[in-house]
C-alpha cells in the first residue's frame, strides 16, 4: 500500500477548496491590529480531502473490518441504524441551552435511559453526565469524597485498588485527592480479601472494584468483600467497564455496590470512534444519589421533563448534559434488545470467551484457569517459550485479526487479554483459534516470523522508542510556528 502524504504535503498555496458562504450583510471594518496574517491551515481541493481521508481510513482497522478481541474494551458491533437515528435533526441539531419546552423528546429519552440504567444496575439514581469511563470514576470518587466530608469524615483519604485494576482507577483516585493503595490478587484471581481487611480502618474512604475483574473473573467473595468495606465505614465503587458480562445476569446494586460507572461505548454498543467519544454515566445507591453531578433529567409532570440538579450535587463534570449523541445510541440499543436480549448478549459474550479460553489454554497458559466471564487473560508466550506477547500480537495482524489487549493486567506476565464479545460467530472464533495455534507453532519453529511481524500491514513494525525520543508531534514547517 502506498504512503499517504499529509494534508500539508498535499497543500498548494492559493488553492481554494470551497466557495465560502455568501455575505448578505454590509461588511463592518475589522480591528486590523488583532488580525493575523495567516491562520496556518492547509489549502486543498475537496476531492483531495475526500481521497485523503478515504485512503487513511483504509489504513485503519475497526470492528466493521473484522474481529477485534481487544480485552476490556468490548468491541461489539455498532448497529448502523443507531448511527442514522443519532443524526436525525431532532437529535443532532438541537442546542443544549434551548428552553426545556422545546426539547421534550431529548429529555424524555434521557429520562428513560436514566431509569433503564438504574434498573440494569440496581441503582437509585443515575447521572448521564460523565463523558467516559474514567470521568465516571472521577465523578464517583468525588461523590465519595463529598459523602465522607458531609458525614464529618473528611479524614477518610485512602482508596484501595486491586493490582489488577485498570490504570484509570489509581489515576482517578489521585485526581480526586485520595491516596491510592494497591491490594494484591489472590491465587484464584480474586482480590485478596485479607489484604483488604488489613486496610479497613478509619482512613479508608472506599475501594474500587472491577467485577468481573480485569482477569475476566467474577469476584467469588464479592459479598463478603462489600460487607467488610461497608462495615468499616468505607464505600464500594464498581468499575462498570465489564458490565457486558452482567447485564441481566447480576445487578451491581444488588451486590451492594454503592457507586458505579457504565461504559455506554462498551456495554451499550455506542461506537468507540477511534478512541472516543464515549459516555460514562454513574449510578448510585439511595445514600449516594443526592451527590450525583447535574444536571439530571427529572420528571415534572405526566410526560413532561426538566433539567435539575440533585440535592447535594458535586457540580458539573462537563459543559452541558453529557454526550447526548451517545445516549441516543445507547437508548436505541437497550430499546432494541429488551430484558431477554440484554441478558442473552451477556450470556453469549461469556459463552464466546470461554470457548476461546478452552481452545487456547493448552498452548497459551491461562494463569487463573477457571470459568471466565466475558473475557480472559492468558500468557502471550506460547508453550511458555521465549517469544513475547507483543510478537504474537503483531503476527496476528497478518491473519487479518486485531490483536487482543496486551501487557494488561500487569499481574500476568506477557498478558494477552481476549474479549471476543457476543456478536462474533463461531466460525470467526474458530478462525481466530486456528491462527493462534498456528502462531504457537511458528513461535516454536520459526520465531523470527513473529519477531519481524507484521508482514502484511501498510507499515511494518514501528519504532516507538524513536518516536518518544525525537518527539515529532506536529509537522515541521519551514517558517516558525505558523503564527
Amino acid at each position, binding site marked *: 500500500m502506498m504512503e499517504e502524504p499529509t494534508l500539508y504535503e498535499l497543500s498548494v498555496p492559493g488553492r*481554494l477548496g470551497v466557495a465560502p458562504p455568501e455575505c448578505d450583510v454590509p461588511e463592518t471594518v475589522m480591528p486590523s491590529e488583532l488580525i493575523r496574517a495567516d491562520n496556518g491551515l492547509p489549502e486543498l481541493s475537496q476531492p483531495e480531502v475526500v481521497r485523503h481521508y478515504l485512503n487513511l481510513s483504509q489504513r485503519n482497522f475497526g470492528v466493521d473490518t473484522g474481529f477485534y478481541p481487544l480485552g476490556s474494551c468490548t468491541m461489539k458491533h455498532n448497529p448502523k441504524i443507531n448511527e442514522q437515528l443519532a443524526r436525525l*435533526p431532532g437529535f443532532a441539531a438541537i442546542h443544549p441551552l434551548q428552553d426545556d419546552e422545546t426539547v421534550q423528546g431529548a429529555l424524555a429519552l434521557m429520562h428513560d435511559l436514566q431509569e433503564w440504567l438504574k434498573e440494569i444496575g440496581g441503582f437509585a439514581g443515575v447521572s448521564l453526565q460523565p463523558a467516559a469511563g474514567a470521568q465516571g470514576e472521577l465523578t464517583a470518587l468525588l461523590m465519595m469524597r463529598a459523602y465522607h466530608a458531609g458525614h464529618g469524615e473528611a479524614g477518610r483519604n485512602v482508596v484501595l485498588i486491586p493490582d489488577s485494576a485498570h490504570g484509570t482507577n489509581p489515576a482517578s483516585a489521585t485526581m480526586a485527592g485520595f491516596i491510592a493503595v494497591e491490594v494484591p490478587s489472590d491465587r484464584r484471581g480474586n482480590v485478596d480479601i485479607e489484604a483488604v481487611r488489613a486496610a479497613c480502618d478509619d482512613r479508608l474512604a472506599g475501594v474500587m472494584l472491577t467485577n468481573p475483574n480485569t482477569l475476566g473473573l467474577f469476584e467469588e467473595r464479592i459479598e463478603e468483600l462489600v460487607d467488610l468495606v461497608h462495615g468499616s465505614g468505607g464505600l464500594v465503587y464498581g468499575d462498570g467497564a465489564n458490565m457486558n458480562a452482567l447485564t441481566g445476569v447480576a445487578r451491581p446494586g444488588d451486590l451492594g455496590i454503592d457507586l458505579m460507572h457504565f461504559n455506554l461505548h462498551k456495554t451499550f454498543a455506542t461506537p468507540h470512534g*477511534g478512541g472516543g467519544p464515549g459516555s460514562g454515566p454513574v449510578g448510585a445507591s439511595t445514600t449516594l444519589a443526592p451527590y450525583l453531578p447535574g444536571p439530571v433529567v427529572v420528571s415534572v409532570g405526566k410526560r413532561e421533563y426538566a433539567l435539575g440538579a440533585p440535592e447535594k450535587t458535586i457540580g458539573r463534570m462537563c459543559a452541558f448534559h453529557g454526550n447526548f449523541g451517545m445516549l441516543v445510541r445507547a437508548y436505541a440499543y437497550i430499546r432494541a434488545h429488551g430484558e431477554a436480549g440484554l441478558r442473552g448478549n451477556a450470556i453469549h459474550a461469556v459463552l464466546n470467551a470461554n470457548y476461546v479460553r478452552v481452545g487456547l489454554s493448552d498452548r497459551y497458559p491461562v494463569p487463573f484457569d477457571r470459568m471466565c466471564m466475558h473475557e480472559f487473560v492468558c500468557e502471550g508466550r506460547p508453550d511458555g517459550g521465549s517469544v513475547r506477547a507483543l510478537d504474537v500480537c503483531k503476527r496476528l495482524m497478518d491473519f487479518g485479526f486485531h490483536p487482543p489487549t496486551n501487557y494488561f493486567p500487569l499481574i500476568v506476565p506477557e498478558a494477552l487479554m481476549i474479549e471476543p464479545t457476543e456478536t462474533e460467530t463461531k466460525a470467526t472464533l474458530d478462525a481466530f483459534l486456528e491462527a493462534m495455534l498456528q502462531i504457537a507453532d511458528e513461535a516454536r519453529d520459526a520465531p523470527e516470523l513473529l519477531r519481524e511481524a507484521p508482514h502484511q500491514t501498510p507499515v511494518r513494525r514501528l519504532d516507538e522508542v524513536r518516536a518518544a525520543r525525537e518527539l515529532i508531534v506536529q509537522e515541521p514547517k519551514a517558517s516558525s510556528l505558523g503564527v
Partner: protein
Amino acid sequence: MIYTPHTDEERRQMLDAIGVGTLEGLFDDVPERVRFPHLDLPAPLSEMALSTELRRLAARNVNLEDTPCFLGAGAYRHFIPATVDYVLQRGEFYTAYTPYQPEMSQGMLQAMFEYQTMICRLTGMEVSNASHYDGATSLAEAVLLAIDAAKGGRRRIVMSPSVHPHHRGVVETYLQGTDATLHGPDDPAVSAADLIPLVDTETAALVVQTPNVLGRLEDLDGLADVVHEHGALLIVAVDPISLGLFKPPGAFGADVVVADGQPLGIAPSFGGPSLGIFATRRAYIRRLVGRLVGETVDTEGRRGYVLTLATREQHIRRARATSNICTNAALGALAAATYLATVGKQGFRRIAELCWHKSHYAAARISNVAGLTVNSDAPNAPFFKEFVVDLPRPVREVNAILREEHGLIGGYDLGRFFVGQENRMLIAVTEMNTRAEIDHLAGALGRLVS
C-alpha cells in the same frame, strides 16, 4: 438487531467444548441470590419499530435545521460541510478504538497527527494533544497542569469571571480533589487587564477566555509577561472559529490554550459529544494530558505514526499519571480535522469574517431599535459572534414570544449565568444566520419594546 449469531447447533458444540451442560452453567460464580434478576424494561423492538419510536422522540424537539437560532453561549450553529460526515461514517474509523496497535491504525494516527499540527498552527502553540472530552474539561485539566507545573506548591488560580460559567463549574468540580482555590471578581464585564493585580506569587495560573462569554475579545497584550514574572502560567480559552481571523494566544505568550471544538464541524447534538482542544508549549510536553501522536519510521524506514510519551498516561504511570483520561474525543478531532482541511486557509478565515460581519450587522440593527441597547456595559470593547442586548423585560418571556409568535429561537438568558441579569440577552450570530433572519429578529424585538 440480533447480537447473537449462534444457532442452537453451534451453541451445543461450544458448550460441549467448554464442558458445561447449559448456558446457565457458565455463571456458577455469580451468587444465586442475585443471579438472573428480572429487569423491568420495555419489550424489544425490530429495527423498523425502533426507527419509528426514535423519530417520534426526535420530532418532539425543535431543531435548528428548521428553526432560525440565535442561541450560542458555548455551543454554536456553524455550517458543516458534507465531507465531514462522509469521513465520520467510514466504519474503519468510527468502529475502531484507540490506536494501540499502530501498524493496524495508521489511518487514525496520521489523521490525529495532522489534527495536532493544525491545532498547533491555529493556536500558535507547539504541542497539541489528540483531544479531550470538551472545552470545559480541557480547561479543568489545564488548571491542574498549571498547579502541577507551578513551582513551590502554588494553589491559587485567578480566573476571569467572563470565562464560560459552565466551564468554570467544571473547574470547580475538578478542584474538589485538590486544595487549590479560584479567585477573581464577580462582574463579567471586567477586562483581562483588571485581573492583573490579583496575580501574585501564590498564583499558579491566570485564566482568561477570548472572545469571552459575553462575546468580547480580550486584550492579551502584555498579559503573559506579567503572569510569567509572577511565576504563573497563562491559560487562554478561545472560540476556535476566532482563530481563523485573529492573532492566536500563542502569539501573546500563552502557556496553555484550550477550546471547545464543537464549532469545527461537530453537530451541537444537545451539547455532546464535543471536542476538547488542548495545546501547550513544548516545555510542558511531559505534563500534557491525553494521547499524543508522534512520527516515526518502520523497520523498512517508511514513515509511520504511533502514540507516544505513554509514560505520562494512566495505563503506565497509574496513580502518578498526568490525568486519568483514557477514552477521549478522537472522532470529534477527526471531524474537526476534516472540517479544517475542507474549508482550508481561506475558507476558514472567511467564515470567521462572516461571523464578524453578521454579528456586527445584527448588533447595529438591534441597537437602532429605540429602547434596546447593545453591550451597554462595554460599548467600545471589540466583540465577535456574540453580544449582549438589554431588554425591558425578562429574556424568558421574550424568548417565549419569539418562539411562539415568530418561529425564532432567541438568544441566551444571561440571568441563568449571572444573578440579576434576567433582562439581558446574549445573542449569537454566525455565518448560518441570514440577513432576513437577523432583520426578523430585530423587527420582532422592536415590536416587543414598542
